[in-house]
Structure formats: structure tokens, C-alpha cells
């Protein structure tokens, strides 16, 4: 009787541990989301203070990554989780790496934005970047929602958007090249813009990665480097087959 009680107790504590780490990941995600939004706003509105503040926030995100990592190591060492629990821990360890990278890219955008703030802004007020930034931060938001709900279908939907990001990236790149050819004086700014767009494109990739971890967490299937159509077909056959 006593042993049964004890094991129940341990598993409850274990559940709480897992739940706490998951919550920390989402809190970290919230910080990263805000950082990204601030970085893009800093660029669009030419607010150099806001841009610089993004860099300062990044240390908080880094600190959270380290503490979540330690917590995961502790869980792995003391609880030796198996099956679904193990997948959750592995997915969390991977997710926070991607979140941290998103934070780094956000910091980069903020830094460039605070530098561009002192320059004259182009006539289109970075409309394309605004559009791309919106798609990308929407992706990050939905990826984290899917993570919170363990919703693999939503994760798949988000992952599919990465293609749009790539197309936008291409189109802004072409536009920048045109600007540079037309007016060599704009090369400097165009290069900075390229850096920002590149960072946004990378953030899109990281959001897609997070979605893949969600699918891994739910279905136990590693879907990295797999074509989206194949994943989709696979998931559908699983859900209908079982």
C-alpha cells in the first residue's frame, strides 16, 4: 500500500516538473515574441531606443534558455523518463535552442534598426519588411500556440507557411538588387535591409522547426528534412488507421 502511494507521489511530482518546464518554455516564447515584434516596430517607426532595448532583453532570454536546459538535464538524470515523457523533454531542449536563436535574430534586427533610424527612411517605409515581419511573427505565435495545445495539425499548418516566407524573401532580395543597380548610394541601406530580411527568413525556419518538434512530441515521428506533403500523408494515415 505504501509503495503504491509513493510511486503515485513520485509520478505526480514528475508531472509537475514536466508541466513547469513546459510553462517556462512558453514564458520564454512570450519574451521572444515581444522581442521580435519590438525589433520590427523599431525598424518601421525608426525608433532607435526601442531597437537598442531589444538587445538588452536578449540577455533575459539567454538566461531562461540556460535555466530550462539545466532543469531538463536534472529531469533526465533523476527521473529517466521514457516514451512520451522523454519525447517531451527532447522536444523542449530543441525548442529552446530555436527560441534562443529567434531571440538572437531579433536582437540583430533591433541593432540594425537602431542604426537605420538615423538614416532617411525610404519612400515605401519598409512596407515589404513590415509584411514579412508580420507573417513571421504570426508564425512564431501560432507555433507556440500549437506547442501549448500539443496540436499537431496546427503545427503542420504553420510549417506550411514557411514557403510563403521564402517567396517573400526572394522578392525583397530582387527588389534590393534593383535598388542597388539604380542608385549606388542606396547600397549601404539595401545591404542592411538584406540582413534584416535574411534574419526574418531564418526566424521563419526556426518557427517551422518548433512545429516539427510539436509533431514529434505528439506522434513520436521525426519529420525533419521530410517533405511537407509526405508528413501530411503520413499523419493522415496514422489518424485514420488507428
Amino acid at each position, binding site marked *: 500500500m505504501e509503495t503504491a502511494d509513493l510511486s503515485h507521489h513520485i509520478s505526480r511530482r514528475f508531472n509537475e516538473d514536466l508541466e513547469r518546464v*513546459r*510553462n517556462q518554455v*512558453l*514564458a520564454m*516564447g*512570450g*519574451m521572444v*515574441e*515581444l522581442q*521580435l*515584434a519590438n525589433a520590427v516596430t523599431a525598424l518601421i517607426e525608426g525608433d532607435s531606443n526601442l531597437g537598442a532595448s531589444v538587445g538588452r532583453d536578449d540577455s533575459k532570454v539567454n538566461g531562461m534558455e540556460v535555466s530550462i536546459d539545466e532543469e531538463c538535464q536534472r529531469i533526465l538524470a533523476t527521473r529517466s523518463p521514457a516514451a512520451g515523457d522523454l519525447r517531451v523533454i527532447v522536444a523542449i531542449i530543441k525548442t529552446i535552442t530555436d527560441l534562443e536563436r529567434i531571440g538572437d535574430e531579433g536582437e540583430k534586427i533591433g541593432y540594425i534598426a537602431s542604426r537605420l533610424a538615423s538614416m532617411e527612411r525610404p519612400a515605401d517605409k519598409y512596407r515589404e519588411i513590415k509584411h514579412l515581419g*508580420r507573417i513571421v*511573427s*504570426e508564425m512564431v*505565435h501560432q507555433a*507556440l*500556440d500549437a506547442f*501549448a*495545445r500539443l*496540436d499537431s495539425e496546427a503545427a503542420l499548418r504553420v510549417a506550411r507557411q514557411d514557403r510563403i516566407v521564402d517567396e517573400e524573401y526572394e522578392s525583397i532580395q530582387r527588389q534590393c538588387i534593383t535598388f542597388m543597380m539604380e542608385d549606388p548610394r542606396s547600397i549601404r541601406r539595401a545591404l542592411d535591409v538584406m540582413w534584416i530580411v535574411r534574419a526574418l527568413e531564418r526566424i521563419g525556419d526556426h518557427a517551422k522547426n518548433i512545429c516539427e518538434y510539436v509533431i514529434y512530441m505528439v506522434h513520436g515521428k521525426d519529420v525533419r528534412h521530410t517533405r511537407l506533403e509526405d508528413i501530411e500523408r503520413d499523419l493522415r494515415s496514422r489518424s485514420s488507421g488507428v
Partner: protein
Amino acid sequence: MTPGTSAVLFVTLRIAAALALGATLGWFAGAWWLGVCGVLVLYLAWNLWQLWELHSWLRNRGVADPPDAMGLWGDVVAQVVRLHRRKRFHKERLARLFRELRRSTAAMPDGVVMLDPKGEIIWFNRKAGEMLDLSRRADLGLRIDNFVRHPDFVQYLRGNEYSAPVIVRPDVNQEKYLAFQLISYGEDQRMLMLRDVTREVRLEQMRKDFVANASHELRSPLTVIAGYLETISADPGIGELAGPINEMRRQADRMTRIIEDLLELSRFEANDGPIKGQPIDVAAMAALLRKDVLARTTHPASVEVAIESGASLIGDEAMVQSAFSNLVDNAAKYTPPGGSMTIRWWTDEQGGHFSVRDTGPGIPAEHLPRLTERFYRVDPGRSRETGGSGLGLAIVKHALYRHGARLEIDSVEGRGSTFTCHFPAERLFEQRAAANG
């Protein structure tokens, strides 16, 4: 005698009578006990029949009518029927109440989310579901901070200071601001009220922008006017126009000051969060402020500085300087040449306190609550004379607000006023031993 006992008594009497009858009949037939047994068997059979009737009615009492029974059985049936009716009545009332409650919360213009101690969602109304994009099917039992991940909200949820709502954008990609207010009730239960404040936030932003832009736009033409007036007034050929032109210069100066104060205020307002800042040497600042007062053409006879603590104040130097100098300036302006004023800085367990006391005319009590409003004048004629912008105390209030501090005003008409800034203890920085007293 209660009706119950009388019924029991009646039944007992009836059985006794029946037994007596049975015994008599049996006695006539030759065996009295056979008669008694016959009566008992009949009675038992009747009882079983009644019990069976009652039982089958209880099994499907929803549809069937209660059985007709007499005697004690009839009483039992009546009691059961009454109990059953009462229960159904209460159940219906509760269900109706619950339906009403659910309908009314669903119709509420604000969102409501009920949370358990861990912050997991127990229930939410339709509006909250719309606002936060929650689905009743999937999201019950999940934690609210998994969906509203804004760091400010997470901090608010984990803290225990719920008096003021926190305003955040739940989705950073949408221009939608929600005010979240937590309300504790019962044992560790919490209710989260949500209100859409996008309009208010936008209006407030527009107001701030308008003031900042308008002041900025007014500054350039005013500089030109002031410049020309200065050149003209230096010209010896203006003759009797000297008076009016000097007055125009004075007024232009005043306008410049008002605009500068407005710009300063909107700069303080541009950001709402508390500031971190660096340690500020209050003693040095107070000494400088004293010097400024003594440099005025007319100044109070005595200006004392009492520094009773060596602690520094952590804050934004420009903002604190602006707040303190506004207070000192006011005191210097309103203290008559023969009066005295005291600047004091001290610390205790509550935090740091900076006070400016004067022996001026004092402020009537009814004006105190409105004193920090913009352009509020106690005595319109007098303050225009002294050339104030009417924004000084508004600046003080806002600068203090950004430091988590508050302003206290004590004033006795005819005797003088004391303006005290109370800073929280975490704003203090004790480097040297407090021995400057």
C-alpha cells in the same frame, strides 16, 4: 399526538380487531389459532402487495401515478411523493439559475475566465473565448499563461498584486490591447476579467502625440518672434515703444517656458514603464539647487539644506533633477524675501524622502487634490505674475510616478507648505555610511 403516531395507533387497533375477529371465527370452527393464522397470512399478503406496488412505482415514478393505498402505506406514499416533488422543484430552480447565470455571463461585454490555483482554465465565457481565441473543446485545463505569453502578463499572474489591471497585447501582431484584471475569491480560486481597451490606449497615444507635436511645431515660430523682439528692444530708436516691446519679450519668454515644459512632460510620458537609472548624489543636487535659489534676484532670506542620509537615490538623473528643481523653484517663488525655506533629504525603513518646506502663503485645502493637474492655478492672477508655466507640479508628479514614488503636499494657509517626495526603499543605494547628517 402527532398524525404519525395516531396512524400507527389506528393501524395497531385495526390489526388487533382483525385478530380478535379471526380468533372468534376460529373458535366457532373449533380451532381458534387457525383463525388467527388465517388473518395473519391475509395481512402479510396485503402488506406484500402494497410493498410491491410502491416498489414498482418508485422504479418508474417519472411516468406512473403513485399507487392508491390506505392506512400507513398511504401515508408513506404521500411522504415519498412530497419529497420527490420538493427535490424536483429545487433541481429545476438550480438548473434555471445556472442557465440564467451562464446566459448572463455569456452576454457580458467583458471576458471572464475562471482559473484554478495553478492558473489552469476552468471555465470561460464566450467573449473571453473570442478575445483570446480559446476553444472550449481543447483549451479547458490548460494554463492561461500558455496562451497569453506576454512577459508583463506572466509576471502579473505570478505576483500577488492584483489591484490594478495590466494592459497587454495578447497577440503582438495585432493592434488589440486587453486589460487583464485578476480577482481572488474562495480558496485560491481566481477570476480573470478581460476588457478591450484598444480604443482608450489609442486615444491616449493620440493625445500624447498631439501635445508633443503641437509643442514642437509652436517652438520654431516662437524662436523667430523672440529673436526679433530681442533685436528690436536693443535698438535705441524705439522710444516710447520700449515698454510694450519689453512686455512682449517677457510674454514670449513665458510661452517658450510653457512649451519647453510641455515637451519635457511628453518626453516623460513617452514611456510608461519604471526606469532603472543610476545612483544620484542627492546631497550634491540639493547644494546646487540651493545655489540656484540664492542666484535669483529676490530670494528668501535663508535657504537651508539638511542632508540626514548618505544614501544615494537610484533613478534617471535628468528626471529627478527636473522634479526637485520644480519643487525648489516653486518654494523660492512663493516665499517672501523675509521668509525661509528648507530642503531636506532623509531615509528610514519606508524609503527615501526629499522634502521642500517654505514659509509662503500656503495653499487652501480645497485646491490640494487638483494641484498636480496641468495648468491648474490656485490664484490665476498671481501665478501669471510669477511667470510659471502651470506644468511644474505635473512634471514632478510624472517624474516621481516613473520612479515608483509619490508626492505628498502639506499646507497650512498663511504659514507655508511642505512638498515631500517619498521614494520606495528599493530606490536607495547606500554606498557610504550614512553619516553626513
